[in-house]
């Protein structure tokens, strides 16, 4: 999809007053935040597992070329093929080539964030293939022609009644003309419609939560079973994955699984964890006859070793966005690309350009909740600050904020001047408040953005620095 991150402020303003969106976002707290907390509390070893998981990823990244080559060797030994792509365009071309050679018409898809990143659906449809998302959430947003608003719950912004209308509009051609207004009816109708697609698909495309160097396996973690129907029924299975997904062994995957589901949905284990290794074996009664893995770089190797290195530990659980007050307020679409919330605010500027997504690193209160809940301990707030620094250095920040920052740093480095200026400002504000007989200001020059939603209380009594000095003198005497 074409990034619209440059429209962030406008989109966020619209999102904040969208009643359907606000209602739907309310489910994040009960659905994800509470369940994660309970799951983490039930497992005393959670923090130790988190450290272990982080160590595994770090070790792999330090030897990434070795483990990717080992993975490739095992895939080939098991009868599969590995394709490398530097750019989204290359990845799409590889997938289209495989589909053409297979004589495919219909392509089913399991949920894949790399699939979103390379916009594979648009590429497939542009080349004349029918591409069908099969994860219920992805299916809903495909019908609505929208991008995902959450990395594991792509349709979290939709209310039930919106889904009712969407299905009513699109399912009539399959003979479903009655409006389904309850969850079981909606899920069942999608199940029936998609069943026909699964059984007649020529190619199945899934993502991968992990790639296992030891065995050449790709691993997906799902709850619906759509990923498994996608990688079992069609004759061709294509896996699209970022190069950072590789881990050494099945033991290492086991450790990562223990923190993934708990952080994502608060489950101890997702319903289906599936290891796919090569095509079907001789005498097998089902399974694909071709197995392809497309490894995508798209800027990842640039991040390796620089200040955003730790972002490559990300296992796409979504905990950072679930706990982010900004994301909770505005939902995912305002971020304007496929990755949203704190991890998206770091990844989007790095993948589509800071000039395109300059507002994202600034839409953060630096409260640190994302880093606290991140199973991989990724220093997201520090990275967002680093992006702000880059913006300042690249002169991508506005003249007003540059001037304000310059004035602030001038003062902050001159403590005596600072105290004098601050003292004068405090005294005049206090005087103004007394004269006007109110304890607070409704509007403030140069701070309209701040006072448009709240009043500024008038300063009262001595400043913190004065009080501090007095207290220290008192202690010494």
């Amino acid at each position: 999809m074409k990034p619209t991150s440059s429209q962030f402020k406008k989109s966020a303003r619209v999102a904040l007053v969208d009643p359907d969106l606000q209602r739907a976002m309310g489910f994040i707290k009960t659905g994800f935040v509470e369940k994660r907390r309970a799951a983490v509390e039930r497992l005393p070893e959670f923090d130790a597992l988190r450290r272990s998981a982080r160590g595994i990823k770090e070790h792999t990244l330090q030897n990434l070329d070795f483990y990717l080559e080992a993975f490739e060797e095992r895939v080939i030994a098991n009868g599969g093929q590995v394709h490398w792509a530097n750019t989204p365009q290359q990845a799409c071309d590889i997938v289209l080539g495989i589909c053409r050679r297979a004589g495919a018409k219909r392509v089913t898809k399991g949920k894949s964030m790399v699939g979103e990143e390379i916009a594979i659906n648009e590429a497939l449809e542009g080349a004349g293939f029918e591409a069908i998302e099969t994860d219920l959430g992805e299916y809903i947003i495909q019908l609505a022609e929208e991008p995902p608003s959450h990395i594991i719950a792509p349709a979290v912004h939709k209310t039930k009644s919106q889904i009712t209308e969407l299905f009513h509009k699109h399912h009539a051609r399959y003979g479903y003309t009655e409006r389904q207004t309850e969850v079981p009816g909606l899920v069942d109708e999608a199940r029936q419609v998609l069943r026909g697609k699964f059984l007649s698909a020529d190619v199945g495309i899934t993502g991968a939560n992990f790639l296992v160097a030891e065995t050449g396996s790709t691993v997906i973690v799902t709850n619906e079973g759509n990923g498994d129907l996608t990688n079992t029924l069609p004759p061709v299975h294509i896996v699209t994955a970022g190069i950072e997904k590789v881990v050494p062994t099945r033991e290492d995957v086991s450790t990562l699984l223990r923190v993934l589901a708990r952080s994502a949905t608060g489950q101890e284990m997702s319903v289906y964890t599936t290891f796919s290794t090569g095509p079907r074996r001789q005498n097998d009664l089902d399974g694909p006859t071709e197995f392809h893995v497309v490894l995508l770089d798209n800027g990842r190797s640039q991040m390796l070793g620089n200040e955003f290195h730790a972002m490559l530990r990300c296992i796409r659980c979504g905990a950072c966005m679930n706990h982010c007050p900004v994301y909770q307020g505005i939902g995912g679409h305002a971020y304007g690309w496929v990755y949203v919330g704190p991890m998206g605010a770091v990844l989007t500027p790095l993948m589509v350009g800071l000039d395109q997504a300059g507002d994202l690193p600034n839409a953060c209160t630096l409260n640190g909740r994302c880093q606290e809940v991140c199973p991989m301990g990724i220093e997201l707030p520090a990275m967002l600050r680093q992006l702000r620094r880059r913006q300042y250095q690249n002169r991508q920040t506005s003249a007003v904020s540059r001037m304000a920052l310059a004035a602030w740093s001038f003062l902050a480095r001159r403590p005596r001047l600072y105290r004098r200026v601050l003292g004068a400002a405090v005294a005049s504000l206090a005087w103004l408040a007394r004269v006007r007989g109110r304890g607070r200001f409704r509007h403030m020059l140069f701070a309209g953005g701040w006072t448009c939603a709240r009043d500024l209380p008038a300063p009262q009594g001595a400043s913190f620095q004065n009080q501090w000095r007095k207290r220290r003198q008192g202690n010494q005497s």
Partner: protein
Amino acid sequence: MSDAREQVLANIRGALNREGPLPDSIARSLQGRLSRPRANLKPAIGDDLTAYFIEKLESVSGKVTRVASIDEVAAVVARHLESFDLGDALVVAPDPALQGIPWSNRLRVERRAAAGGDRLSVTGAYAAVAETGSLVLLSSPESPTTLNFLPDDHLIVLHESQIVPHIEDVWVRMRRDKQAMPRTVNFITGPSKTADVEQTIQEGAHGPRRLHVILVAD
């Protein structure tokens, strides 16, 4: 696309401050890490594996029926068919371990992979994991993967001795008695479900609506 391969690998090595592949001595030690994998931290679980497994599976809406011997499996399956009004047809995995089950002659039993309209499958399992309440199924001519996903109801015959404590124990067992990874290894932990509509959990999204383990005492 070998150009892209070389470029990606060169980018990675550049970022890691290396000109070429890892020196042999380091590569050998990493090969060792791959060929002799070691388990990381495993969470503590109680001593009673069977009880732990049942508790975990039931907590995610899996059903467990305990029977004294494999001879009782047919009756449990018949009751299941009846209570959910699933008709009289079932597909059984062509698994030698399920060969001797004395099915009632009122039932139509086929041994094959699953097709779109199948309502109920009966399979064995390779192992079960107490820690997570998961069933482990390996694809093979005796255990076609479609049986785990297409039918509305999936019944799994599991022997108590097949329950292992942790996920890692499955890998240890597989290294011992399987030459290579099968095409598919499924860890199945409850019936299919989704929470994509307003975070409401609904069972039977795309896979089986019900998962029923028939646990045979050894």
